[in-house]
């Protein structure tokens, strides 16, 4: 068994790269720290919540303009939140006008459906929870033991 050679190998310290990776893709920070099992389960857990929120609330569950404070929590999942919002803003262009009648719907098909009530609330909530859980993962990755491969390398070559 490889044993660490210095005090810094056994104590947690700042890992800014790991924190940055974790912010970009949930679980990537822990993968960089050579903890693939934790990385996989973080990715699956946060991914499940995000996908579940999108299935329940639709793409309208992520809307930076209409639901700003919900989006602040959702942004915790990383750039994916911004990409989903950009997609939603793009699809909004095909929404029916406020005075649309049945005739409008005979000749037009909206690219998405606006979500309301339970669908929107629960869908948004799932993605906000995913964002906050990723913040926990980012904090854990950013203050962590050094990556295992660095500890092993120092053990092999004490100089």
């Amino acid at each position, binding site marked *: 068994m490889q044993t660490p050679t210095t005090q810094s190998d056994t104590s947690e310290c700042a890992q800014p790269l790991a924190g940055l990776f974790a912010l970009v893709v949930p679980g990537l920070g822990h993968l960089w720290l050579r903890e693939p*099992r934790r990385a996989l389960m973080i990715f699956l857990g946060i991914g499940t*919540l995000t996908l579940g929120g999108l*299935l329940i609330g639709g793409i309208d569950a992520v809307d930076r303009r209409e639901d700003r404070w919900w989006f602040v929590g959702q942004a915790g999942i990383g750039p994916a939140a911004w990409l989903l919002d950009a997609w939603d803003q793009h699809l909004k262009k095909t929404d029916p006008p406020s005075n649309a009648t049945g005739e409008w719907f005979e000749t037009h098909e909206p690219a998405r459906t606006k979500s309301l009530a339970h*669908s929107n609330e629960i869908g948004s909530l799932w993605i906000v*929870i995913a964002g906050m*859980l990723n913040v926990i993962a980012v904090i854990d990755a950013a203050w962590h033991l050094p990556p295992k491969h660095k500890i092993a390398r120092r053990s092999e070559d004490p100089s």
Partner: protein
Amino acid sequence: MSLLLLAAWRPILDPISLPGNAWWFTLVPLALGIAMSYKASRMTECPGWWKQYVRGTIIMSVQIIALLLVLSVGLHLIVEIFAPFVATELNG
């Protein structure tokens, strides 16, 4: 949800349409997702990690659901029994 509605549903583009009493069941996958992510963030890797992780995730999921059930019963008692009682007493 009728089959017709299900056939017309476009995943992600359209919100899902569930009957009124079916929304409560979304709590189960929500609790599971929270437990999966939280336990993975907090449990450091060690021998036997998978077994401990699975057990910890299941326990945490059950705890979340049980706590929310207790909270809902408590709030129901407050709203349906305690608050009307206090209102009656105050009004004499």
